[in-house]
Structures are given as C-alpha cells and as structure tokens.
C-alpha cells in the first residue's frame, strides 16, 4: 500500500467529497481537483498513477485532460466518470486513452474494482 494515491477531478464538490470518502475508506489516499488546470498543476508537483476524471469540466474538458496526462505521464491510468456520454463521446474516450468509462451514478463496487484493477496493473509493470 506504499503509493496507493488517487486523484479525483470533478467540478462538483458533492462528487469530490463522495469519491474522497469512498476511496479513503478503502485505504487509498485521495486528493481532489476541481478543474483540469488544477489537476495538471498537481500532476507536475506530485504525479498520480490513478485518476478519476469527470468529462464535463469547465475550461479544459476531461477528454483533453486525459490526453495531456497520457502524454506527460504515460504510465498513469485514467478513468472517466461522466453524467452523460453519447456513443461518439465513448469512442472519443477510448481514443483519448481512458482505461474505462463509467456513467454516473456509478456504483461504489465499480469504482473500487476499477481502482484495484489499476493498482494491480501498476504493480505488475513495476515487477518487470
């Protein structure tokens, strides 16, 4: 459990609070950002390996944020959590490099399974 840190990016405080509580309870260390710009600032200082991003962010949107993270920190794993996604947006999510996409309301089981899967994958990479 050395570096089980998750960054949650959502412009709504209710969602940030909820996700913080859910992941903290499961033993993760959580940091939140309310915009893509803030998330990128955080990444520059202390990179996160696992991120949950809202797609509909003010300013730079979640898809673009994912692209930049994948470019700057290729080992980081991003999950999309969105209130609404058309088929087109779903395919755009895949192209942007999201590991998976969840529509709100996502179940806690889905979110936790995603986080666990991501950290297992990272562990596997590290062992190489």
């Amino acid at each position, binding site marked *: 459990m050395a570096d089980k840190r998750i960054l949650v990016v959502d412009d*709504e405080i*209710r*969602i940030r609070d*909820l*996700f913080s*509580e*859910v992941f903290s*309870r499961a033993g993760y260390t959580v940091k939140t950002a309310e915009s893509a710009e803030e998330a990128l600032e955080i990444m520059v200082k202390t990179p996160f390996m696992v991120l949950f991003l809202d797609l*509909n962010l003010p300013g730079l949107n979640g898809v673009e944020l994912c692209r930049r993270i994948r470019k700057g920190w290729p080992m980081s794993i991003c999950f999309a959590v969105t*209130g*609404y*996604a*058309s088929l087109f947006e779903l395919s755009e999510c895949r192209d942007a490099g999201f590991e998976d996409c969840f*529509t*709100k*309301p*996502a*179940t*806690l089981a889905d979110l936790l399974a995603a986080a666990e899967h991501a950290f297992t994958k990272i562990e596997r990479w590290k062992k190489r």
Partner: protein
Amino acid sequence: MKVLIAEDEFISRTILEAILTKWGFEVVATDDGESALEAMKQPNAPQLALLDWMMPGMDGLAVCQELRKLKRRDTVYLILLTSKSERGDIIQGLEAGADDYIAKPYNNEELRARVHVGRRMITIQNELREWEKLQGVLEMAGAVCHELNQPLQSISGYSELLLLDINEDDTKYQTLQKIKSQVDRVAQLTRKIMKITRYQSKPYAGESRIIDIEYASQIKKENDYDG
C-alpha cells in the same frame, strides 16, 4: 404514399386513379375543389395532390391558395393539371401555391417523373423533420441525464456508504434499502434515456403525447424504418 386527385371529369379521374394506383400510390379521389380541400384537412391527409385547374366551383388554383393558407405543419406538394400553358398562367399557378404543373394532355412518363419529384421532396422533408425532432430529443436527453446523474451519484453513493455503516437488523437499514432501490430505478431510467437513438412518441392523457422511452432507446435494427 397517399396522393389526392381533384378532377371533375369522370374519365380523366378514373384513368388518373388507375395509373397512380398501379404506381403504388394510395389514391384519394375527389371530383371538385371543395371536397379536395376538405380531404386535405383531415388527419393523416395526403401530402401530395394533383389538382385540375379547371373545375366548376372552387378551381384548382383556389384550392392551392386555400391549402397554403391552412399552413399545415407537414409538407404539402401540389401539382396543377392544366391545359393552360401560357407563361402567364404558369406563373399565376406557381404564385398561387402550386409546386409544379403538368400540361394537359399529359404524357404518362412525364406524369410519373413529376409525381416522383413530389414524392422525393415530401420524403426528404419528412426525414428532415424526423431528424430535427430526434436532435431535440437527444439534446433534452443529454441535459436531463447530465443534470440528474450528478445528484443521483451523491444520493446513490452516500446511501451505499450508509448501508455499510448500519447493521442489517436495524430498521433504518430496511428503510435505507428502499430509498436506494428507488434511486436505482431513476438511474436505470437515465441510462435508458442515454440510449435513445430514434424518435418515437406515444399517446398520454388527452391530446398530449410523450416520448416512448422504452421503444426509442432500443437498438435500431437494420431495415427497421417505415418511411
């Protein structure tokens, strides 16, 4: 597709009706302007009409004018049948609201071609209208999902967290589960709304209609289109 014909002459009307039926149209035949206008006012009235210009009483030209005044919401394509072929007559006919004219005596091939132009125009307009309706529905669906799913995420997530904290024997646990199950129901609805791919409405109370979410959100099968 339905087509209306207004022709006072029995033999001409019968021939026209026979030809159009043979070409696959569903023909509504009338023998004067008044009944033609009346037929075009009915629910599910034809969108395509062949009107003889020269008729006793209300003539084809007047039918065109009256029909345009009705401002029907669907596309109405009007073809005047006329032995008048002076430039002035043609202009007068088109200005009265006709979309096209056919000079009598007409040639069957030309009649067929002009009727097909009308059918094509109507089909394009109908499809465009359906597309616009669908876009409106999709925009509404997007807004509803976006606005509802945010609070739903909070309600659903916090209920799940609370359920973890409360003992299953506690009566509050049961109550909370009921709340959670209803939240899940709303969540299922927003997921269905997100899957809408076509426009389909169904009757509701009185005159009003509502989107048939169940049908509209089913995956569209190929060839599943009744144009």
